[in-house]
């Protein structure tokens, strides 16, 4: 039993699959997120795959501000990700709305709608920062498993 638990733990540590949702960002953070997955930064070294399907994801990476139309979608996607999951807010907009915080159709950061585990500041954050965030989220995932949250 303990052995199996350890296997599962290794699995969760080494294979974080990522769902990226562009929630109204200016594309800056999106292309940096994509860049993380391309050869120069190659997040697949850590087992990261961009799955594009909430049902397969472990890490929910959100970029951009939340507006009135996409808040529901953000929430839906969040609900569709199976436990254990970690939510990453990438970029200033996702953290707080950034420069758009006062814009008429902007509600604010991602954490107004769903609980965020890790914040990655920057406008846009460098790929290295996103990679750091992913590595940090792996630790969080491991903690969640250890605390029996599955």
């Amino acid at each position, binding site marked *: 039993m303990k052995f199996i638990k350890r296997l599962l733990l290794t699995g969760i540590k080494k294979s974080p699959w990522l769902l990226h949702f562009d929630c109204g960002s200016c594309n800056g953070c*999106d292309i940096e997120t994509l860049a993380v997955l391309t050869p120069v930064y190659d997040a697949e070294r850590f087992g990261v795959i961009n799955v594009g399907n909430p049902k397969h994801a472990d890490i929910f990476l959100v970029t951009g501000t939340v507006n009135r139309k996409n808040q529901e979608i953000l929430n839906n996607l969040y609900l569709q990700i199976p436990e254990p999951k970690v939510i990453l807010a990438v970029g200033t907009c996702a953290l707080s709305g950034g420069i758009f915080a006062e814009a008429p159709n902007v509600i604010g950061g991602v954490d107004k709608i769903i609980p965020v585990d890790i914040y990655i500041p920057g406008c846009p954050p460098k790929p290295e920062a996103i990679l750091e965030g992913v590595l940090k989220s792996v630790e969080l995932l491991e903690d969640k498993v250890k605390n029996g949250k599955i």
Partner: protein
Amino acid sequence: MPKTIIPFGPQHPVLPEPLHFSLTVEDEIVQEAIPGFGYVHRGLEKLCEIKDIHKMIQVVERVCGICSKIHALCYCEGIEQMMGVEVPPRAKYLRTIWSELHRMHSHLLWLGLFADSFGFESLFYHFWRIREKILDINEKTAGNRIIVSVNILGGVKRDLSTEDQKWILAELKEIENKLEEVKDTLFKDYTISKRTKGKGILSAEEALYLGAVGPVLRASGVAQDCRQLQYAAFSELDFEPVIAQEGDSFARMQVRYFELFQSIDLIRQALSKIPEGPISVKVKGYPEGENVFRVEQPRGEVFYYFKANGSKFLDRLRIRTPTFANVPALAKMLTGIELADVPVVILSIDPCISCTER
């Protein structure tokens, strides 16, 4: 006849941005495509009422992260025109160089995503590897990889030293070589031709009628390029719009690919002609009146309308972006194609939704 309705987007792996298409499909042939927008709308035009004209530069830079520099350029030139500010020539050249770098970065990014849309993963990676070089140039010369924030009213913030110029030329040479390497792949690979030729055909008349702009228009054989309006330093540089005749996805790829070489050439010309001098002038006072300014973005013509009242806030700022102009053409192109070609055709106009919805 039984039909299938596919909610294509807002979150969908092939779409880099939230955009919705309600596709009605019959045997995987698209019968109808209803676009749905509004997932990225922030209302940033309204921000001009609370952020002064200097701060608005940072806002318009974030209309779209991919062509941020060119948005800022358009904004600055428009305001400067209203205020009658004469920008120093060196600043004009620097603006040109950075904007062409942005165009290259955008086209490379697009070529990658386009390769990805027909499932050519390694080609996608190849283009993004080339693109990293341009981002390095951006980072080294301007301090940030994507949103460079170099423009200010009356000039630019940063200067290019001679070493930097040499380095840029060396990097460009390397990029050119790497691009030459994939030329055969793009134009002579059987599978790529199979997936792009004849997909999403737009004739020149249709393109003009539907108001398409940029590479979409040029790929249909209409030689129209807003850089011919001679803003920034383009009046002193020598170039011809790149065009193709077929008007399909393949032709759009062709146009964008050759525009990369055009941009390299323009940067080289600019670097060879760049004059010495100051890089900015001090701007005092505030604009008044109305103005319209158009520049060529990687995706086509962007259109800025300003209305100012002499205070530090603008009355109205209106941005019409190229993707907005290309969406009618896209909706037309989407009908009658296979579902597998939907991503190819959507990407062939290089949609930038955050531009479109602002």
